């Protein structure tokens, strides 16, 4: 069987169609919220939420067992969503209070989350294979409900992340200025935390709770090496995230590998490659010519010697030259408006 035959076989498989669709949705949407987290220097927030989400998965298992659901993990994703949101809000609360012990509190939350998850899954009758699936990703059992759930979460994440980009950028770039501008900083912070939690929940199936942060952060890390703006960084990260997820998942069809690990290694390899190539691309850096507007701005105060006086804006002719500290060799300008 040729490679093409295997590829066609993969694409004709309903399971792989669903899995690839979810991987694409996750790959595109996870870096959106990741861009905000990187800008805020909260790159490991997703990691922490992922740890807590595992407890939610385990509680979903317990609830499913108690309710007698057909599939043991039918309530795993809803449980993960609930736990991730609660965990994200707790983390945001600790961050907002800014206490010196915040990192210790966060560490306890992280370790408590993963330890609680492992214990509860064991109590619910889960196996090591089930646990590995949640820790490192497994989409071999996704059904159409998972696709719809992932699509719904992706729409929400993209809607918030792209629709409110100006406000979220203002918040993540300079929270103090955002507050001084009257932006609802607390509400926006909660929105970021909840969206991050939903991103973890949607990504968990593909890459697992231990590697979920990689999908949010590594595509952004690659994009920030080459993108010239915040907006472009987000756009490039979305494209790269989608590509590495789909390609990584496809590789696991050909080789029995963990999807989460494959996708993460692929993304980090991409980062290394771009980091190596980037200096070559930037070698032809040319000197920027002086900004004529800046020169004109300075000429209004007579600070630039020899710059034509007639380029000054007439309305500002009253401002001739600096008084104190002005360079003694700066030309004197007329001070009268009628001059």
């Amino acid at each position, binding site marked *: 069987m040729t490679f093409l035959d295997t590829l066609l076989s993969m694409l004709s498989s309903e399971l792989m169609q669903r899995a690839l669709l979810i991987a694409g949705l996750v790959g595109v949407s996870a870096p959106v919220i990741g*861009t905000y987290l*990187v*800008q805020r*220097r909260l790159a490991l927030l997703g990691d922490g939420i992922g740890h807590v989400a595992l407890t939610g998965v385990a509680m979903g298992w317990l609830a499913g067992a108690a309710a007698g659901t057909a599939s043991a993990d039918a309530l795993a994703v809803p449980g993960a969503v609930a736990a991730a949101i609660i965990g994200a809000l707790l983390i945001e609360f600790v961050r907002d209070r800014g206490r010196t012990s915040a990192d210790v509190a966060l560490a306890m939350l992280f370790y408590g989350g993963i330890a609680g998850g492992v214990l509860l899954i064991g109590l619910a009758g889960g196996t090591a294979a089930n646990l590995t699936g949640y820790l490192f990703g497994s989409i071999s059992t996704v059904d159409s409900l998972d696709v719809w759930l992932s699509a719904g979460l992706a729409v929400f994440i993209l809607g918030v992340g792209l*629709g*409110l980009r*100006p*406000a979220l*950028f*203002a918040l993540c*770039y*300079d*929270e*103090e*200025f*955002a*507050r*001084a*501008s*009257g*932006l*609802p900083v607390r509400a926006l912070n909660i929105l970021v935390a909840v969206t991050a939690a939903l991103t973890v929940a949607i990504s968990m199936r593909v890459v697992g709770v231990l590697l979920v942060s990689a999908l949010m952060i590594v595509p*952004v890390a690659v994009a*920030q090496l080459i*993108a*010239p*703006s*915040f*907006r*472009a*960084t987000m756009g490039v990260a979305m494209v790269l995230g989608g590509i590495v997820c789909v390609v990584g998942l496809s590789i696991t069809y050909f080789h029995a590998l963990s999807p989460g690990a494959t996708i993460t290694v692929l993304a980090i390899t991409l980062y290394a490659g771009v980091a190596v190539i980037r200096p070559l691309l930037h070698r032809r850096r040319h000197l920027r010519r002086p*900004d*004529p*507007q*800046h*020169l*004109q*701005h*300075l000429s*209004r*105060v007579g*600070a*630039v010697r020899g710059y034509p006086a007639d380029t000054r804006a007439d*309305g*500002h002719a*009253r*401002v*001739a*030259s*600096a*008084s*104190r*500290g*002005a*360079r003694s060799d700066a030309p*004197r*300008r007329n*001070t009268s*408006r009628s001059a």
Partner: protein
Amino acid sequence: MRDRAGRHPAVQIDGLHVELGANSVLEGIDLEVADGQTLALLGANGSGKTTLVRAVLGLVPATRGRIAVYGADLVMRRAVPWSRLGYVPQRVNAQPVMSVTAEEVVAAGLLDHRRLVPGSHARERAQDALGQVGLRERSRDNVHLFSGGQQQRVLIARALIRRPDLLIIDEPLSGIDHDSQTALAVTLSDLQARGTTIIVVLHDPGVLAPLIHRTVVLDHGRVRHDDAAGIEGFPPRAGSTLPSDASDDARVRGTDRAPHPDHHALDLTTGRRGSS
């Protein structure tokens, strides 16, 4: 207290106390800043001047007392006319994590409590604001690669894009070269001519001295000197006329705001305001 025209003062502070941790930083500040006034807030390090402006911006909670901005109590955040306020911090607070263009930073200044997404002309307005500080040609450049003076001009543009009626600017002269200082003086002079109220925190008035209507000196969290007495009521000087371009600006802005009566054409050569 409202002025003769029935307008609220830009800022009204009554009995303000601020405590940060166990430290009492401000102790009973009473201050009224009239609309159109340019006020310099001076004092030594630790005197409380930055805390005072941060309290006015709602960045530091008042332990006791009241702050009102254009008549709106700061406690009622949703009632505060945030779009009328512009703030220029001392330096860029953000970490240079990823490339962020000057245009993106400045466009963020269009947002307030009612507007989470800027309008369709955000890019043009950001470029115009950058043009006002002489950086239009660098609007697509990474702001983290700018010099300290250029970064400060980006922050000024971020405040200017709001077309603020009240501009609060923190330590604008520290760490920037002389050319940037004089450029800043011109920008503030233009704003003053449009009737913008300006509160500027300074160690030393320096090149901004000719612009200042009123000086308030803080010492250990208290007002030690306030030369408001000489300009109380702001009577127009006899024979003075407003700069014509300033009146044009007011019309362009579609407001009745006129330059402060104490505003006269500024000559930075002599440091004097002349009757034009």
